[in-house]
């Protein structure tokens, strides 16, 4: 018989950003337990869909509709002594299982006939199994930062556990964690609900709802969406879903006078500091906001007024910072960067600025980029950035505009931290792209030089993101810089190249969706110019489905193997046409010369199509001609032919990397 199961871990407020991960972990941990203990009854898709894990800031709940009441009995055959064994040995075996000799069976194996016993291990009641195992399941949830709350060496969890509901059918599954006994009593919303609510599995959700707890994250999200209208900020929505048990949206406003401050600053205050949704009207920031409260409403407007007052204070601060900062031009702030550390061993931001300027110059003589590089870090000394660190760069750009820098320069400063993620766009102008690359390249190469190399999940300086950003800018900005040259002169040169190669591979494969073997094939033929890499990839992708391509790739792999076996490296010089055998060999040679001359100076795609058209001649060659000819001179000449063919056509991609069926 199967029973429904409900577990609720009641806690103090869990950090919003950890909750989704904990839900997944709990589901997995319970699945593993069900399997290892043989208690999970629900195996069909339909049955699985009736299981769920939900969470609010104060609880994580797991429900499974089909759990066996008992573990299944275990039947197993235990092998005993051989049929020919002494009587005492047989009786000893029987005694071990509490039976007499004639209750034993026999079985014939390859080695002969043996006594055996059909043992039946009784399954235990699931309630007992769960009582034993659930504490471990709960405490095995991994958190980014767990805590003690009773004493050192006590239980650790993300926040103190204050109650536990554990029901199997109508029965409480009894266990204890950190002095908290499981039971059937949950707790409602901190302010609006009852503190102690006895529940059954059947009425659990509805009792919570009556006590102002909406258990389902989706339902809470829907409530917020209804209140806000068009939600443009899904990240903020997710945060608020997990900061509330009963979200209710209120609307507030502020003095339009503040709209004179840059929208970037206002939105940052609202979004990052107050967790409000900014409101736009006709594409313009409006003097309104939505706040999501953990209440059932604000009939007297008290909460709205409170939030408006806080926002006013924040905006006043921002205005104060703006005005104060204007007293000193960005250009005059550069020297102050001598007091701002970049990294203990890598010196100050003033030194970094000098390095970034030099790198930018090395990339390209672009006066706007040099000016922007010079000013790029100056905003780190402003009050505005000290307060709103997430606005670094943006503030510098806004101040540069205010102080009359040309558009190309202020935009370059504004954008130079971009792209901050793979979804983010690259800097909008060339100068910004140059400064961004120079800045990120400096960070990556300097950190590598002093041994700060990312490993596993450790990447404190976000070097992967920086390198990924460089790749994205080079490709999408169509910047044809020799990347390798920029990576030499580093104590960690080879590691640095490998690191970049990984980022390049990730970019084209995971972000751009090229097939992994195409990426490998193209990168094997060089990756110094990433714009060129992209062009070659696009060509391969287009030509790959044509009939000749994959078979030719297979032949190229064969050629490579033959050359490898013959340890032929091509130092023997040119092909001697006189030694070529008439028929397929001469035909291949003639066709090869023809293709070579026609493909030269062609864009990649037609060039590839031409190369692919060699396929019938290559096939015929392999069909009819023995490469390993007895005559050494002929053999040498044939290997030279193949080698030349391979070398000639591997500049676009190493076709042997292409994975073919066959």
């Amino acid at each position, binding site marked *: 018989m199967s029973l429904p199961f409900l577990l609720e871990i009641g806690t*103090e*407020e869990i*950090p*919003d*950003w950890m909750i989704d991960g904990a839900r997944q972990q709990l589901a997995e941990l319970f699945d593993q337990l069900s399997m290892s203990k043989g208690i999970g009854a629900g195996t069909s898709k339909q049955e699985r869909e009736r299981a769920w894990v939900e969470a609010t*800031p104060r609880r994580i709940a797991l429900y499974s509709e089909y759990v066996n009441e008992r573990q299944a009995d275990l039947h197993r055959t235990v092998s005993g002594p051989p049929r020919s064994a002494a009587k005492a040995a047989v009786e000893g075996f029987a005694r071990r299982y509490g039976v007499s000799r004639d209750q034993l069976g026999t079985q014939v194996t390859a080695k002969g006939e043996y006594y055996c016993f059909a043992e039946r291990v009784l399954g235990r009641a699931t309630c007992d199994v769960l009582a034993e195992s659930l504490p471990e399941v709960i405490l095995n949830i991994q958190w980014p*930062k767990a*805590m*003690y*709350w*009773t*004493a*050192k060496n*006590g239980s650790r969890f993300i*926040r*103190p556990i*204050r109650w536990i509901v554990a029901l199997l059918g109508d029965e409480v599954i009894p266990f204890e964690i950190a*002095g908290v006994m499981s039971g059937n009593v949950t707790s409602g919303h*901190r*302010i*609006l609900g009852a*503190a102690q609510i006895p529940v059954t599995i059947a009425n659990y959700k509805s009792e919570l709802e009556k006590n102002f707890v909406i258990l389902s994250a989706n339902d809470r999200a829907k409530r917020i969406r209804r209140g806000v209208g068009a939600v443009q900020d899904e990240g903020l929505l997710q945060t608020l879903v997990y*900061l*509330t048990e009963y979200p209710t949206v209120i609307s507030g406003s502020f003095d339009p006078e503040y709209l004179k401050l840059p929208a970037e600053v206002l939105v940052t205050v609202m979004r990052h500091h*107050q967790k*409000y949704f900014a409101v736009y009207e006709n594409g313009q920031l409006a003097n309104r906001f939505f*706040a999501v*409260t*953990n*209440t059932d409403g*604000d009939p*007297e407007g*008290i*909460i709205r*007024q*409170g*939030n408006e*007052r*806080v*926002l*006013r*204070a924040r905006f*006043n*601060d921002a205005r*104060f910072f703006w005005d104060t900062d204007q007293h000193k031009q960005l250009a005059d702030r550069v020297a102050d960067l*001598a*007091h*701002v*550390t970049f990294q*203990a061993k890598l*010196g*100050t931001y003033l030194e970094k600025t000098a390095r970034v300027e030099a790198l930018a110059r090395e990339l390209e003589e672009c006066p706007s980029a040099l000016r922007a590089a010079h000013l790029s870090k100056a905003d780190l000394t402003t009050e505005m950035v000290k307060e709103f660190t997430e606005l670094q760069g943006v503030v510098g750009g806004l101040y540069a505009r205010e102080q009359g820098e040309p558009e190309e320069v202020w935009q370059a400063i504004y954008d130079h931290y971009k792209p901050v993620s793979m979804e983010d766009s690259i800097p909008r102008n060339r100068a910004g792209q140059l400064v961004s690359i120079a800045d990120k390249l400096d960070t990556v190469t300097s950190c590598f030089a002093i041994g700060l190399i990312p490993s596993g999940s450790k990447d404190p300086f976000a070097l992967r993101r920086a390198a990924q950003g460089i790749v994205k800018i080079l490709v999408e900005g169509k910047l044809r810089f020799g990347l390798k040259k920029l990576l030499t002169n580093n104590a960690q040169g080879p590691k640095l190249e490998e690191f970049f190669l990984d980022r390049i591979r990730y970019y084209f494969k995971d972000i751009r969706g090229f097939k992994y073997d195409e990426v490998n094939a193209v990168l094997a033929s060089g990756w110094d110019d990433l714009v060129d890499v992209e062009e070659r990839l696009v060509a391969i992708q287009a030509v790959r489905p044509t009939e000749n391509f994959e078979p030719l790739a297979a032949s190229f792999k064969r050629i490579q193997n033959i050359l490898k076996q013959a340890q032929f490296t091509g130092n023997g010089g040119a092909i001697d046409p006189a030694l070529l055998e008439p028929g397929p060999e001469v035909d291949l040679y003639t066709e090869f010369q023809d293709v070579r001359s026609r493909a030269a100076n062609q864009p990649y795609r037609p060039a590839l199509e031409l190369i692919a058209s060699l396929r019938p001649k290559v096939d015929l060659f392999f069909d009819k001609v023995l490469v390993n000819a007895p005559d050494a001179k002929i053999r040498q000449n044939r290997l030279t032919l193949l080698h030349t063919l391979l070398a000639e056509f591997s500049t676009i991609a190493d076709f042997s990397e292409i994975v073919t069926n066959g």
Partner: protein
Amino acid sequence: MDSYQEIIFKLKKYWSDRDCIIQEPYDLEVGAGTMCPETFLRVLGPQPYRVAYVQPSRRPADGRYGENPNRLYKHMQLQVILKPSPADVIDQYLGSLGAIGIDLRKHDIKFEEDNWEAPTLGAWGIGWQVMLDGLEITQFTYFQQCGGIDLDLVPAELTYGLERLAAFLQLKDSIYDVEWGGGATYRDVRFNDELQFSVYNFEMANVETLWKLFDLHEGEAARLLAEYRKLVKPLPDGRGSETATEPRPSGSADKLRFPLLPAYEHVLHCSHLFNTLDARGAISVTERVAVIARVRKIAVGVAQAWVDQQEPDAATRRHGDAASEPAEAVR
């Protein structure tokens, strides 16, 4: 509407009714209520303790010449330590808001993750900032470590920002307009402090003098710690070494009367001098990390010696380990 001082009275009364000792402010300059011995030292060791006090807290870099309506060089914290933290600690805290007239059914309260760390004290904890209608009114921290030492009992620390709370309750846009009591505003009482200390900290503090003071206080703390270590170090001839079983009563008595609390005051002076030098822009990049490490070393040294002093028996058994090498016992 309650005045600023009435709000303080009510909060003190509330915690007094919940078995807290009501202490008066510590009479030295500190950056936060956490740094007072009533928190920094009392959270160490196995003794339960409950205490509440108002602590004027100085942050030289936050001074704004009395011009910014929300920022102060010196603000008042109500600091509550509940050691060990009771299971209903959050309910008790919410009750204190009720006690000062906040009807939580009409407000929006949220607990948002905010972990606390004080590198100069070797201390950190896990907790929240408590948000009331979008305003941060309290820091709520479960201490995990202090002076580099794992805490035997996990205390809850509640730190109320009293000016903000009063401005919130009195519906004021500026802290300076808060009614203090006796017909005076916050401005009447405190404006001169804010203006003059901002001028001093940002413009007139003599850097050379401050450095000298720093060195002197650091030296005195270090000297005392070295003296204390002599009391716990094994004697050179092997007496009182690991194998000795009989306690050393005279040593214990010497330790109990040893002035670690005065040593800690010198640590506090150093910490404040560091903050002032920092606000003055006198600490260079390379110096900064090193100066933090210097303060930390003596702070951690006092914390470890204090634990040793409070457990004299354990101390004689354990001489020569953590207490004798404070700087190295901590990562």
